[in-house]
């Protein structure tokens, strides 16, 4: 379980501090998915970084499995906007990086997940040689290589064309259903939030506060995009965002 209580994050110190997140609370049960949606630059990423242990809250708390977050932890994986691949490492080295840093490589390696994601044949390529969609899949392979309990995603599909984006959203959904990890997604894309979030938290402009929480329990199937429920959730999100 991941939960936050009155989570407040300031950037900078003293008189120069700028509030990014202002008293946010949420609770995510194991295996469920939660999406944060809000305007660009509203502080969404800061929430994710606090859960990942990369930022310390100025006030309030964020806990994973009941324990306060004090730093990055193995059971939580983060996928960044542009997949966060290191250009000087091959697909194989990038996918195995988390395992290597944790001292588990080569005993464990990302071979099976690379094969599952159709990347087995490009193991020796560098990121610059891959299409954008392939880069995102390498990022997913790296994140899932450690079999995390929770996957945090920071606008993981920004700057992708519509078809590639939908294909990778489908992949996220399939992997989430198969592997039952908890999923936290940060996005500014209404349809992405409606497709991947079981519960969607709408945030205000910076500093981010909770504007509304929209339930979306019907999600979970690949054809959800064509359903009435999806359209309803998307319309509701649009309405709240425009308020």
């Amino acid at each position, binding site marked *: 379980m991941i939960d936050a209580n009155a989570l407040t994050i300031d950037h900078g110190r003293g008189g120069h501090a700028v509030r990014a997140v202002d008293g946010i609370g949420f609770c995510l049960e194991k295996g469920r998915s939660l999406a944060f949606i809000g305007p660009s630059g509203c502080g969404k990423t800061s929430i994710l*970084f606090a859960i*990942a*242990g*990369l930022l310390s809250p100025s006030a309030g708390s964020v806990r994973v499995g009941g324990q306060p977050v004090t*730093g*990055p*932890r*193995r059971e939580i*994986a*983060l996928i*960044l*906007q*542009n997949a*966060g*691949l*290191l*250009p*000087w*490492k091959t697909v194989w080295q990038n996918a195995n*990086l*988390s395992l290597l*840093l*944790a001292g588990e490589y080569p005993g464990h390696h990302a071979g099976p997940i690379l094969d599952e994601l159709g990347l087995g044949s*490009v193991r020796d*390529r*560098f*990121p*610059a*040689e*891959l*299409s954008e969609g392939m880069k995102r899949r390498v990022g997913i392979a790296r994140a899932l290589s450690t079999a995390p309990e929770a996957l945090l995603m920071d606008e993981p599909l920004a700057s992708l064309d519509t078809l590639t984006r939908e294909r990778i959203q489908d992949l996220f959904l399939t992997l989430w259903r198969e592997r039952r990890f908890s999923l936290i997604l940060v996005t500014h894309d209404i349809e992405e939030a409606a497709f991947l979030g079981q519960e969607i938290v709408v945030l205000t402009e910076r500093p981010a506060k909770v504007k509304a929480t929209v339930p979306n329990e019907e999600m979970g199937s690949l054809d959800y995009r064509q359903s009435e429920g999806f359209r309803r959730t998307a319309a509701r999100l649009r309405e709240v965002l425009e308020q």
Partner: protein
Amino acid sequence: MKQIVTYATSLVILLVLWQAASLVVNAIYPSTPLPGPYQAFSQVVKNFQELQRHFLASAARLLVAMLISLALAVPLGLLIGHERTLDRFVSPMIYITYPIPQVAFILFLFLLFGTGNATKVAIVALVLFFQILVSAQGAARNLSPEHLTSVRSAGATRWQVYRHVVFPAALPSILTSVRVSIGMGMAFLYIAETTARLGTGLGMYIKSRMLVSRDSAFAGIVAMAILGLFLYVAIDVVEHILCRWKYTGSRSR
């Protein structure tokens, strides 16, 4: 193959220009003739063994100086560039000392280390040190935040951040700075070798021949050019091996 043709063409053009310059100088200043490529290269062949000895002495000094400056400047530059507190304290020191022409220390170094190899290596290492230090520092300061977050979120230790992000990201800049400073390093080596009264090295060879046999002095200059070219190519090869990722394009889409 294409590159070899380009290099060969450039070489031919250079030789033609050199020959032309030689003809012009010899016509205007007949008492101070400028040897042409043929004279210089025939002296290279004639004095091959002696040239080889001096060539190897200079090459060894340059290589040792390069290794020493790399070993000192790379870790220091990366640390200063990446650790903000250190940057604040050490950078002003670098900015104050960097513009001092290192050659100004040459006499002091001769007094300190004597006229042997140590001084010659030290002066070249000093020049290269600052060039490499400044570029390693700059590269480590301008890392992509996403690359850092990417490894930190996976729990990387400080050492792992250096090993997987800071060093590989800065390596192309470091190698470029080495390449750029080869010319300067050779110039300083020449000064160091000619400042000593005796000894080996192409600088000494050229100096001792210039007044007595100009053709063979120019053979020494040709040898210096070959040494420089050899180092350039060597660094290119090292870069192609260590920074292979820079030379891969968008092969598949």
